[in-house]
């Protein structure tokens, strides 16, 4: 059974690019347009990894990570921040919130898939 990965980004085109990369590697993909939307869509189903942008409207990525870590069903779901944000302070915030990796855009699909395969839940 295919593993499920959620991609959270306010850019529809970026969600599609990530989605294509993941689907071509055999993963199922869930999409969220921002942190609040992602939390709304996490309804207890199994999610093996979450990839999220940082700067988003309604709820930013780091706040979302903090909220997800409060949810028992997703407490141990690994989260990768995929962002243009390169400031060390923001990275430290992401790490403190519970993110597992910080990946800068633009990404290339093999690089993304390598990170996914390293972190995705069994």
């Amino acid at each position, binding site marked *: 059974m295919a593993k499920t990965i959620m991609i959270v*980004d306010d*850019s*529809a*085109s*970026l969600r*599609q*690019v990530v*989605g*294509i*990369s993941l689907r*071509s590697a055999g993963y199922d993909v869930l999409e969220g347009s921002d942190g609040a939307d992602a939390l709304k869509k996490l309804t207890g189903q199994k999610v093996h990894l979450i990839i999220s942008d*940082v*700067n988003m409207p309604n709820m930013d990525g780091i706040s979302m990570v903090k909220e997800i870590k409060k949810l028992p069903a997703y407490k141990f779901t690994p989260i990768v921040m995929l*962002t*243009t*944000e*390169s*400031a060390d302070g*923001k*990275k430290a915030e*992401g*790490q403190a919130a519970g*993110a*597992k*990796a*910080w*990946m*800068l*855009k*633009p*990404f*290339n*699909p093999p*690089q993304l898939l390598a*990170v996914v395969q*390293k972190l995705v839940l069994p």
Partner: protein
Amino acid sequence: MSTSRPTPFGASASVATPLLWRWQSTAFALVAGIAAAATSRDLASAFVAAALVAGGVVLDRMRAAREARSRQASAAFLASTDRLGHDVLPVWAAHIENSRQQMETAVAALTQRFAGIVDRLDQTLRTSGQGDDKGLSAAFAHSNDELRGVLDSLKDAMASNAAMHAEVQNLSRFVAELQQMAAEVADIAQQTNLLAINAAIEAAHAGVEGRGFAVLAQEVRKLSALSGATGQRMAEKVGVIGEAIRVARDAAQASARREAASALASEGAINGVLDRFRGVTQAMEASTAELKQESAGIQVEIVEALVQLQFQDRVSQRMTHVRHNIERLPDLLSASRRTFDASGALAPVDADGLLGELEGSYAMADERATHAAGAPKAAPQAAAAELEEVTFF
């Protein structure tokens, strides 16, 4: 109350004001001098003093008028910058935002279409992969076996016909034998008849004693006649049968020739079809392999193109940061105008603060690099396309 006065250049009139006070003080001293001179009846001194007072007053009024015009100009300038902030900058910001949204919509649509192409290529490759490269070869081999089977059945049928033809040939030989046997029967009947005649003659010679034998000879003659007739009919029937067999044999031979020709033509046609089918199959296999290779190549190219489309996200963020900074300016300009209206002092716009806010909003390293360079010439175009590192926590 402040002693400073505004000037059109934004600085306070700290230099002009002492001059004015000096003129007023001088005029006061001169008026006192005129009064003293008039009291002492020194008319020349009083006249000079009066002229100086009058000149000072005139210069004082001219300066006041110039300062009023300057204040009006400052107010007009601030009103124009305020209008710039409230009327022009929002339009700039709206254009930036509209451009950003249009770009995002267009890139999203483009990405969607590319994604659709990738999906369809993927499905096509998967479908052709299910048949595998051996699919057409297997179909050809199966068809070849089937058609060869048909040819074999045809050859079997021809072999059966040949056996039947041989049997008919054998029947012809039996017919000849039967005809011979019928002729022999007729011959025997004739000889029997001759014997019966001779017996009748001998019976007549015997007289009364030979009467019974004569009757017997008569009956033998009758039987001989019957045997002869039967032999004749047998010969006739055998002739009819022989003719029928000959016709059947001729028909079988003609049929065998036609079947042989037909089988030969069928074999040629089947071989031709199989050869063409083999050619088509091989061409299709080659085309399919090439198509799969090309499809896979196109898929890779499209994915690469999609990766390059990430520029939209970066450009969108830059435009948003600049727009937010532009949107801050109208409030700063209005504040400057309010300060002027309230105090008459020109308050400079805090450009450093505005730049600081812009810099604080940056997320990308190349944004900061552009900011530090301060001019488009140094914008690091290549940096935007570089792939970045991953940090694991």
